[in-house]
């Protein structure tokens, strides 16, 4: 990580001296060289092939940071990349992506204080609340009571969420600290039909997920999650956006910027999404679910924003 920061810093130090030329030089800063970040970079490069951008990479092994020109835009892929980009402290516009909303806010409040408005924006991972509601309704039409676990990270989202999940009754249990987690779940689950997991790094951790899933299974309550990995671990279904989809959205966003624009648009939520269902879990819980394609169609017909 220190290596990435160092390289980006050296690069941007050179760029700051050059006159701004938006949408000409794009620097892609990756949190890591593999996984979703690499997928994002590949897709981004593919989508922007028709443009005349000059894309330079930071954080890739063959990183072509040798571009002598100063970037006009930094695309920070992942929380780490965003933080590193901010830490450079240069006034280059930064578009963060592949980052939960909460992380964005937290990092920005930490490192981006004092940056001019419009110089920082993001395309976050969090799905719009309305889409979540639609997804729950389409997936499990008979399930009314939706349980949520909230912590300091997510507590602030709750009012908006309640508003968006029309027709569904939200039941919430606040969790503060690991030891109380299973107790909170055990308290919550008897009251609800399902558990809706929101991206919350203080609750849904690698070492917790199994215990949470086992507990919900004990209570015969399905879990609707926010990532494919969660579904693989044992959640019933998830709605999420892939790195490729977010790369497309990023490309679109940049292309849509008017020439000579000096500010980035406001934070966006994912437009495209993907659905993943664990049929084994559905079988175990004796649930008869619609297939993924019809769900997608239903969700799009539900008028969820793209």
């Amino acid at each position, binding site marked *: 990580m220190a290596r990435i920061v160092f390289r980006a810093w050296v690069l941007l130090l050179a760029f700051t001296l050059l006159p701004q030329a938006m949408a000409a030089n794009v620097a892609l800063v990756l949190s890591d060289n593999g*996984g979703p970040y690499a997928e994002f970079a590949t897709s981004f490069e593919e989508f922007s092939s028709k443009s005349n951008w000059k894309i330079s990479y930071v954080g890739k092994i063959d990183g072509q940071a040798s571009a002598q020109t100063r970037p006009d835009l930094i695309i920070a892929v*992942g*929380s780490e990349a965003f933080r590193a980009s901010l830490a450079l402290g240069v006034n280059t516009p930064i578009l963060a992506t*592949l980052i939960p909303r909460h992380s964005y806010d937290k*990092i920005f409040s930490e490192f981006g204080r004092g940056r001019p408005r419009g110089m920082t924006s993001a395309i976050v991972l969090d799905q719009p609340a309305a889409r979540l509601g639609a997804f729950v309704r389409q997936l499990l039409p008979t399930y009314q009571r939706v349980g949520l676990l909230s912590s300091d990270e997510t507590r602030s989202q709750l009012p908006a969420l309640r508003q968006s999940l029309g027709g569904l009754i939200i039941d919430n249990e606040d969790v503060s600290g690991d030891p109380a987690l*299973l107790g909170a779940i055990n308290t919550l689950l008897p009251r609800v039909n399902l558990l809706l997991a929101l991206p919350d*790094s203080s609750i849904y951790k690698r070492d917790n997920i*199994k215990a949470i899933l086992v507990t919900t299974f004990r209570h015969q309550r399905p879990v609707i999650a926010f*990532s494919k990995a969660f579904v693989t671990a044992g959640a019933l279904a998830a709605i999420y956006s892939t790195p490729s989809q977010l790369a497309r959205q990023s490309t679109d966003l940049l292309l849509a910027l008017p020439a000579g624009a000096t500010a980035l648009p406001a934070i966006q939520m994912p437009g495209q999404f993907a659905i993943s269902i664990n049929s084994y879990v559905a079988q175990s819980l004796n649930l008869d679910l619609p297939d993924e394609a019809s769900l997608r169609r239903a969700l799009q017909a539900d008028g969820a924003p793209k």
Partner: protein
Amino acid sequence: MKHLNIRQRLLLITLLPSALMAIVLVTFFTMSGLRTLESDLNAHGHALVRYLAPISEYGIISGQIESLHVLAQTSVQEPGVKAAIIVNQRGRAVAVSGRVSLGSEHLRRPPQQAGVVAENENWIAFGAPVMRSLSEADALYEPITSGVESRNEVIGAVFVEFDKGELAQRQRALVLRGLAIVGIGLLLLAMQAIAIADSAAHPVRRLVLAVRSMSNGQFDTRVNADSSGEFGILERGFNEMAGHIEDVHASMQERIEEATAMLAFQARHDALTGLLNRREFEQRLERALLNVQAGGEECSVLFIDLDRFKPVNDTCGHLAGDELLRQISQLFQGRLREEDTLARVGGDEFCILLDNCTGPRARQVAEDICGLAAAYRFIWQDKVFAIGASIGLSTVNRNVRNINDILAAGDAACYRAKESGRNQFIEQLPNAQPERRQEANGWSERISGALADGRVLIEAMPLRALQPDAMTGHLVEIGARLSEPGQPSISLSALIDAAERNDLAPTVDRYFIDQAIKALVRAEKHGKELHCLVPISLASICQRDTASYIAQQLALFNVGGRGLCLLFSEEESARKSTQVLEFSRSIRSVGCRIALDDFGGGLSSFSHLRAIAPDCVKLSRSLTRDLNGNRASTALLRAVQEITSDLDIYTLADGVDDPAGLQQLSEIGITYAEGLAVAPSEPFQVWFEGVVMRS
């Protein structure tokens, strides 16, 4: 190993390696079995805690004590598990089942990984940490933790205790099973080894017994040749060898018996004549004596000593002597009955045992033997020998104590017969105990003593001239007789015999010569014509100085040799012809004459006439004995007379006791005669004084 027999060796060879192998194998497998049991227990323990740890995780996390209890109880139901404990992160036991032996210090210190945490001889405890499991999560949602990797968190531990009793029991069972296998295996092995050893050792044992029996001399020992292979070959080979050995032994036994029989025969018989020898004769005599003493018929024993045997040996050698003995023994044997026993008991001595024969019959046999011996002529090359037999006759009667008496009596009688003039028999009873004849080595003193003392009486045997052309004067043959006080006088022939044997013959001869010369001197002094026939022995003839002695004596007394005629045996002259010729020549040179004694007895007589050219021959008695009616004898005598008269040799017939004989001899032409018909023998001195001096 050395002291073992083949069976024990075979047993050792087959059993020992197999037994060792079996023990090693079973020990190896038992040990590895024991180790396997232990490692099984270890693996079981490890597996149990490894499985138990993850499934306890949720219970510990969620604090579900009930489910942990269930887990612990389920674990304890596993075979061999004696206790199960689940502790939480703080080391407090949250679920316990069974009898726990593990100390609290182990519980409070959770192990870093699955393994043995404690162990003693009764139990073993395995432990494993309970880790918080990590799920696969989307990295995008991970909290930003600056460089801190999330680690597996230990949230508790599980412990399981196993009872080693069961392990020990199973190990014991394993060892017992191993021992049982070894035992049964060794038993089967031993049975098989014994069977093999017996099958191999039995034929060998049989052979050993057979060999032992063979060496003990049982040559008919055989073994059953029913084995196969090498043993069969050995058995058949043994039987063949035994057969050969038996055959060889049998033939050797036969030869030994033959040789023994031959030795026995040789021990009892005389090798030369095939007659019984002295020992066997004595044994038979002993038996005969016992028989007589037991009341059997009496028997007689003849002791025969051949006369004039020595000259044959001396003249023609021992081969001739041996031949003579063989012939004479056959001659004697021919006269005897089947039951009579003839034995050769010495050089020229024979013995005859006449069974159931005494008195006149025995005397007849003795006489016949004498006659046979006298009539017998031994011819060797061109020489003819006449012998005789002096026989002692003794009778075996009940009064005889032992055979030595008989032998002594027979011996003495034989001696007396020989002394009394040979070729005759004298009877003597065993218990008469006459003086034993004096030993030969006494003769020299006797003779020299007799000569010195004048006990040798010179006798005169006057001769009568039967023909007118005979020499004139008194003719006499000088003889002698040994007269010893208290003993019968010994005849001339016995005296000469003894003198010849003792080399005293020349002394006796000189004595005769001296006496004759003395008489001649006296006769000449008184103008009487005297002719003396003086016998002289071969020994004297062979002495060169005999002739010179005679010449000296004649010269000394100044008397001519004409009256002295030396008489010696025709046989003797044939033996030493060179010396005789030399002697004759010397004697003739001093005027003495030569006469041959016993002429006509041998075939060579006539050749001697020419060679020696005697002046006189004294005819053999065999020629003059049977003049009456025996034409052959007469013809022979005539022939002799004719030849001698042609050669101008006088003839003399002696032993003429019958006056008719004189007439007959005279008619034939014999020159002189002597004998009882002429004049009896009388002392020379008496005759000389009475006849010569008074004529």
